[in-house]
């Protein structure tokens, strides 16, 4: 009964188009004379009428895809995705170009353009349409390429200097060197913590499965760590490390101190353990004994059994755990800035301290992009790692 309904009108795409329509009427950006200026809003129609009508046309195109089932079935929603991509480019480029024009017109030399409600709502509409359309496609290729196309569009606009007057891009240009440093630190800390968690977590998961009496205590510890608030765990790491480094000056020379990267790495490592241990354990627990028997029956040695049967079966599940853990760690690394570690969180908390929303946004955007990229890449890797005929290549 539901299927028939679905073949007529795609409610989700249609409501995405409606949300976008609402966004068109709201202010897209705010022109500010300086960082703390309240500024005045400009809507799509205020930017330029051709721009407004092109955006409207793209939204109507999306809505049409939502209404015509035949079109959706044959093209797998590709027109909707393309229209959304067009709208995305239009939104960013339009804001950048007409924002620059407004600034020039008012002579705000140090002025800036802050995206406003309309901007974020149109982005949300694009997100709705694209997630929904991509979800319905079974092609791994399409699911991988669509997010990349969006990121690439943004990169091209950024490198081309089209969005230079956007407030958070301005914030970026005033601290370019530090941005690169903090970004590298963020990636380094997160990657280090997850790598250590994989090195320890996978064996721990195997031990928890093999030695029944250790299962409960091991999971109690790993689960318990997750319950501790992140700031509290960072705090709890400071005291013992400070003591240790006071006792042993050698360690202090190595950079191990109560505050900084060491307690951050340690806390993030502990947080990252749970998904990896749990998924390693699950991957062993769900393994069909018949498969092992079949392998043994074929005359496989213990080593062959491990590399040709057990590892291929459990790898995708373990990788899914790594994926959860890396996304979580990228987020938690933000908080590590509070205990003096490097990373993009420094911009976020600096922005909070200076009451400068643009600086906060500048810090948050790369964190979210990092988390999303890591999520996507690991999703593709773990799908690729599924043994047997590849799913979705048909």
């Amino acid at each position, binding site marked *: *009964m*539901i299927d028939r*309904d*679905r073949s007529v009108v*795609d*409610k*989700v795409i249609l*409501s995405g188009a409606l949300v976008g329509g609402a966004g068109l009427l709201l202010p897209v950006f705010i022109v500010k004379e300086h960082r703390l200026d309240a500024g005045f809003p400009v809507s799509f129609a205020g930017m330029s009428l051709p721009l407004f009508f092109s955006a409207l046309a793209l939204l109507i195109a999306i809505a049409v895809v939502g209404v015509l089932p035949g079109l959706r079935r044959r093209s797998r929603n590709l027109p909707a995705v393309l229209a959304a991509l067009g709208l995305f480019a239009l939104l960013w480029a339009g804001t950048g170009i007409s924002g620059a024009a407004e600034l020039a017109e008012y002579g705000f030399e140090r002025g800036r353009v802050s995206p406003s409600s309309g901007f974020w709502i149109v982005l949300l509409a694009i*997100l*709705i349409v694209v*997630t*929904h359309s991509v*979800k319905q496609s079974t092609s791994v290729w399409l699911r991988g390429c669509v997010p990349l196309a969006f990121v690439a569009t943004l990169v091209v606009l950024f490198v081309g200097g089209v969005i230079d007057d956007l407030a958070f891009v301005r914030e970026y240009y005033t601290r370019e060197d530090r941005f690169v440093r903090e970004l590298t630190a963020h990636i380094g800390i997160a990657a280090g913590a997850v790598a250590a968690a994989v090195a320890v977590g996978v064996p721990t998961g195997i031990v928890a499965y093999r030695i029944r009496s250790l299962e*409960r*205590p091991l999971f*109690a510890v790993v689960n*318990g760590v*997750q*319950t*501790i*608030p*992140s*700031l*509290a*765990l*960072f*705090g*709890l790491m*400071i*005291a013992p490390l*400070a003591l240790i480094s006071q006792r042993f000056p050698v360690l202090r020379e190595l950079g191990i101190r*109560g*505050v900084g990267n060491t307690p951050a790495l340690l806390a993030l490592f502990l947080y990252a353990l749970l998904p990896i241990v749990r998924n390693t354990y699950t991957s062993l627990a769900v393994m069909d004994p018949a498969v092992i028997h079949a392998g043994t029956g074929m005359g496989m040695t213990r080593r062959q059994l491990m590399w040709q049967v057990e590892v291929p079966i459990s790898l995708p599940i373990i990788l899914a755990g790594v994926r959860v853990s890396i*996304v979580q760690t*990228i*987020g*938690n690394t*933000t*908080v590590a800035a*509070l*205990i*003096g570690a490097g990373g993009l*969180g420094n911009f*976020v*908390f600096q*922005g*909070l301290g200076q*009451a400068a*929303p643009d600086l*906060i*946004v500048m*810090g*948050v955007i790369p*964190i*979210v992009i990092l*988390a*999303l990229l890591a*999520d996507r890449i690991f999703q593709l890797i773990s799908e690729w790692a599924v043994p047997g005929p590849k799913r979705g290549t048909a």
Partner: protein
Amino acid sequence: MTSRAIRTTFQIVLLLFLLLFVYMLDFRLGVLRLLFPAQRELIYQRVTLPTLVIQHMRMVAISSAGATVVGLFIGVAVTRPAGRDFLPLARDLSSFAQTFPPAAVLALAFPVLGFGFQPTVAALFVFGLLPVINNTISGIESVDSRIVEASVGQGMTQRQVLFRTELPLSARVIVAGIRTSVIINIGTATIGSTIGAGGLGTVIIAGLVRNNTAFVLTGAITAAGIAFVVDWVFGRIETLFYDPRERVTT
């Protein structure tokens, strides 16, 4: 002793420690003096610890209650026939939103809502929604379709199917979602003090700023202890409900 008895003993000891630590100043002073003999300022003077605990729990209670009500509503709405088209979207958007770090959500709430208690509660509410929505959906989805059909066959109305079959059978999973949401909120509320919301983060941040590890530890121990206790309480509540894994098969 069985492992269950060990666990219960451990929980009682920790709860007692937490109560003494928060409410008995001399006890806290003793513990901290033992750990930090060289530190002169052991007790955070500006706000008392019990006040910080109350501020903290107030933020968590308001935001989690809101998240539970709204999250349940959304989860139920997208599993009804009329809203079913939105189910994959609700799932995708909430897993997309979960890639946002809680600290970032908090920071982004600030330009919109300003400093203090309200933006923190709003950010906690939004972030707390996601696990509730996810678990409500998977709970209802996991109810055996034959049971739902049997309920319809008995002449139950749609509303009766929801309240007498689907929700009771998925209650355990839903409570697990609320548990996750509350625990995340207790954690994120600690960061709320960076935007002036008060709570246990206040004393941790004060300790970090003044390089006073005793302050940091005071806040960290209390926040972690509360998170543990709340987690156990929810663990107990979960066991009150029907466990689909223990289904009796005939």
